[in-house]
Each structure stands twice: as C-alpha cells, then as structure tokens.
C-alpha cells in the first residue's frame, strides 16, 4: 500500500515536470513581441520595458528557464501583473470559494448521476431507462455557460428566487451562500451528472451480466441483495476512478460559470487573468491546478487500490 502510493507519487514527477514546461512554454506561443501583447495597445514604451524587466523577457532563454524553475522550487510562482500580488497568494485566496462550490456541485453530480445511472440500468431498455439516457445525453450536449444564463433569466429575472450573481461567504450567512451558489452549482453539475449517469449505467449493465450475479441469484438471494450488495460493490470501483475526470471537467466549467455569476473564485481569477493576458498568473494557475488534479488522481487511485481486493492482495503476496 505504502509502496504503491510512493510509486504513484514518483510517477507523477516527470508529468509534473512536463506540466510546468508546458506552462512555461505558453509565453513562447505568443506571436511577435510578447510584451506588446501583454501590455495591450495603450502601453507606452516604458510600460513595455517594465513588463520585459518584470518577466525577465530580456534575459537569454537559458536564464529565463533556470530562474523559472529556481523560483518554482522555492514555491514562488511570480507576481501577478493585474493584481500586483504574488500569484500563489492570489490562488490560495480564491481557492476556498471554488472548493465550496465544487463540493456542492459534486454532491449534486454524485447523487443524481449514481441514482439515475443505476435506475436506468435496472430498467434496461424500458421507459425509465430511455428517459434517464435522454437526460444524460442532454446533460452532455447543453453548453453549460448558456444554461447558466437561462437559469438567471428564469430564476433571477422572472421568479426572483436567486440573485443574478455575486457571492456571500458561508461564514457570513449560510442562507446567503446557498442563494448565491445554488445556480452555479447546478449549472456546473449538469455536464458531470450526464457523464456519471452514462458511466454508471454502462458499468452497472456490464456488472449485471457477470457470472457472479447469476450465482447470487441461483443462491436464492433476494433481488435487493443481489443488486444492492453484489452488483453495487462492483460498480462503485470503476465509478470511483472517474472522479478525477469529473473534477477536471468541473474546474473547466468553473471558469466561465464563475465569470457569469460574478463569483470571486479560482475560475473567475483564471478567466480574468487570461482575458487581461496576465501570464504569470495564468502560468501559476495552470501549474497549481494541474498539480492538484494530479494529486487528487493519485488519491483516487490509491483509494481504488485499497478498495479492490484483486489488486490489493496480489501485491501483498
């Protein structure tokens, strides 16, 4: 178990290196003079020079990359051009907000996705299955930023149930938090719930066709035990492994959703950084988000390793 965890962590090192290299290389994608693009059309020659100084663009390439990695190892992701504060501080500042909404959204996803997926599989090819399948399909086909706008029109403009945007911290007012986060969480959950429903359904169908399910029925066990214990235990494992994917999709969505709902989280921070060409912030954000996702994936894999006796016990022998 410890050996497995360590080996997974070791495997992550080259990936992390490549991740940071890609983030570093992003600046070199900029066609022409990077400083002009970053500074924008109104920037004066002095402004541009300052940007170049700040980002070390005047240095030779090898110095740029060494100082990038030296700083990275010291936990220094540079200074944000737009905020003027260290990138890491800005990220740490905004993370709890996004984390809260993500957990909210993830709960909706898991409850909805698992239940619909299982119901669909148990009613294979019947009406309920078709309805669930259709909902899942719509979920993965609707643009979520559009849904976010429609939700605002319906529930804020017409019904007035929720504010059109903004954010109230949970510590200030739990009700206010719920009011400001419910629509974003639902808009975010739609896509993942669609994904999870589809994955759960196909996994359940696969499991239900296995020999050991037939054995469980032949033993005379009730259908409830057969499905609720024998099948579910086997369904949960592959479903756990897609959690990493779902989190990644969730963070993808949070950029545009947080911008639309005007929520000061990590997503809108990244969105605004990109729009204002704040490259140190973009680089830092990309690296820290990718690193946390990698880490979460390792946690999920270790969890899977621990859950599945077929893997766990083989490695002990």
């Amino acid at each position, binding site marked *: 178990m410890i050996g497995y965890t360590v080996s997974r962590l070791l495997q992550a090192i080259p990936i*992390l290196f490549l991740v940071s290299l890609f983030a570093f290389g992003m600046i070199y994608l900029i066609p022409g003079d990077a400083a002009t693009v970053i500074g924008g059309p109104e920037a004066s020659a002095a402004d541009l020079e300052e940007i170049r100084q700040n980002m070390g663009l005047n240095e030779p390439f090898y110095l740029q990359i060494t100082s990038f990695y030296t700083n990275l190892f010291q936990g220094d992701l540079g200074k944000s051009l737009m905020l003027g504060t260290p990138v890491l501080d800005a990220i740490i500042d905004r993370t709890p907000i996004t984390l809260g909404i993500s957990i909210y959204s993830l709960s909706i996803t898991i409850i909805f996705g698992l239940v619909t997926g299982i119901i669909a599989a148990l009613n294979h090819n019947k009406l309920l299955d078709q309805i669930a399948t259709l909902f899942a399909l719509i979920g993965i086909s*609707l*643009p979520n930023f*559009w849904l976010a706008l429609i939700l605002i029109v319906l529930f804020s403009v017409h019904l007035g149930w929720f504010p059109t945007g903004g954010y109230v911290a949970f510590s200030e007012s739990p009700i206010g938090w719920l009011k400001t986060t419910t629509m974003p969480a639902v808009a975010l959950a739609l896509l993942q719930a669609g994904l999870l429903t*589809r994955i759960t359904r196909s996994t359940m169908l696969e499991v239900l066709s296995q020999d050991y399910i037939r054995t469980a029925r032949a033993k005379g066990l009730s259908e409830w035990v057969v499905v609720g214990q024998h099948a579910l235990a086997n369904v949960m494992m592959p479903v756990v492994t897609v959690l990493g994917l779902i989190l990644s999709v969730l963070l*993808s969505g949070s*950029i545009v959703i947080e911008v639309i709902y005007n929520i000061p989280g990590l997503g809108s921070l990244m969105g605004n950084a*990109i729009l204002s060409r704040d490259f140190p912030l973009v680089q830092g954000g990309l690296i820290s988000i990718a690193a946390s996702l990698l880490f979460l994936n390792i946690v999920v894999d270790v969890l899977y390793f621990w859950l599945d006796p077929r893997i766990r016990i083989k490695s002990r022998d």
Partner: protein
Amino acid sequence: MQSHIEIDAVEDEPTGLARFYATARRFMRNRSFAIGAVLFGSVVLVTFLGPLLTDVSPNALSMRNRFQPPSFDNLLGTDNLGRDMFARVIYGAQLSLMIGTSVVILNAIFGVMLGALAGFYARLDNILMRIADALMAFPAVLLAIGIAAALGPSSMTAIIALSVVYVPRTARVVRSSVLVVKELDFVMAARASGATDFRIIMKHVLPNSMAPMIVQLSFVFAYSVLSEAVLSFMGLGAPPTVPSWGILISEGRAYMREAAWLTVVPGVAIAITALGLNLLGDGLRDVLDPRMKVEEG
C-alpha cells in the same frame, strides 16, 4: 482421403451497392444512430442550404427592425442592431462545423499516428503517454483558453487549441485498442510469417483498431462545438465580426430580459448539433463494437 466438407451453407455476402444498402440498414436500425444522423444531418443541411433560402446578409444592419421577435420575415427575430438572427445562426453554424471538422481531421491524423506508435512500441509508449498525461492534467477548457489567449483570437487559434486538448485523448483511445489488437492471434500469425512492423500495423493492427477511434471522433466533434462556443463566448475564438454561436450568446446576454430569443436560439443550435453528434457516437459504438466501454472526457 478427403475429409468432409462442412455442409451448411455460408451466408452469401452482398456486393457493391447492395452491400452499401445492407450496411446502411444495419446502422439505421440502431435508434441512437438514426436519430443522431437525422439531427446532425439536418444541421449540416440547413447550414449549407440556408444561404440559398435567405438572401439577407448576417451583418446587414436595419435599425428600424431592432429586437423583432421571431416572425415570418425574420424567422428567428432580429438583434439589437436589427440583424437577422436566422442568417447569423446559419453563418455561425458554418464556422462551428468548419472548426469541428478541422479538429476532427487533425485528431484523426495525429491521434492515430501517436496512438499507434505508443501502442505498438513499448519504448515510445512511456514518453508519448507521459506527454499525453501532462497535457491531460490540465482541465480541457482551461488549457484551450490558455492557448487561445497566447495565440490571440482567431478561428485558427480555436482549431489549434482544441486539437492540442483532444489529440492526447484520441491518441489514448487508439493506443488502448492497439494494445488489445496487437496481442490477438492473427497479429501473432503475421509476425510468425515474417511480416514487417509496418505491414503489421497498416494491414492488421490499425484496420482492427478503427472502431473505437471513429466513435471517439464523433464525441470529439461534439466537444469541439461546445468548447469553441466557450472560447468565442469568452472573446478568445473567432473575431467579434464573425457571428459565431458563442459570440451570439455573449451579445444576446445584455438583452436577456427584453429579447431572450437572442440567447436561446444560438444555445439551442449548439445543443442540437452536440446532441446529434453524441447520439451518432453512441449509435456507432453499439453498431461497430458492442463490447466497447464508455470513453468520455
């Protein structure tokens, strides 16, 4: 002495046109595929026949006709500058389909090449898959937005950004199916006969690894349409002069109270296109390879 020939007749295989019809019937018998084909087919049809149906230019201003709700003259109403939404949505469709098709073609070329190499040569596998892992460690839209921001807004940018995002995913799908196929006995038989690696990959491995890739490509098409909308909504895709679907939604956003159709119509267009492609993908998966697992992401 000659051993007995098995008596029962082998089914006759149709040839030429009859074979095409038989295959088409087999595909259309799958409900997902049929509905998906009809949905996506109508989007394509309207996109290319639409300009013949309406002589209105998507950028023709008409300040007297601002915010007209859908009517016989303006099938989908007009926007804040009196431009005809029907014409604008159709031109947006052309852009979406062009970008989607380009991304799919790039995925088909590079995804297959890299996936086949990684799957077939264990030595390359490690390097190629670590690179893919690193690219896939970024959330898809975040990476696309980041690349688009660096390259500057244009349709080409969207194509490149989305290809960088989805090629590693396609390569993974191809790789895993190559890994399975290359262990099958007929590949072993070809090796035992002295076939070169190139011949084995081209004649034996790739033709039998295509099914999951075709399915994957239809999903990539759907994701591209959706992600391109996000890019242009954020102002990172096509320039604002081009009526892309994402830009239409972003423009309509300001008038959601008075003229909801400006936001609803392009959103529905995106949803129908993506739904059609997703259904097509589901159908293809069932018809081409019923044993295949759901591959999302």
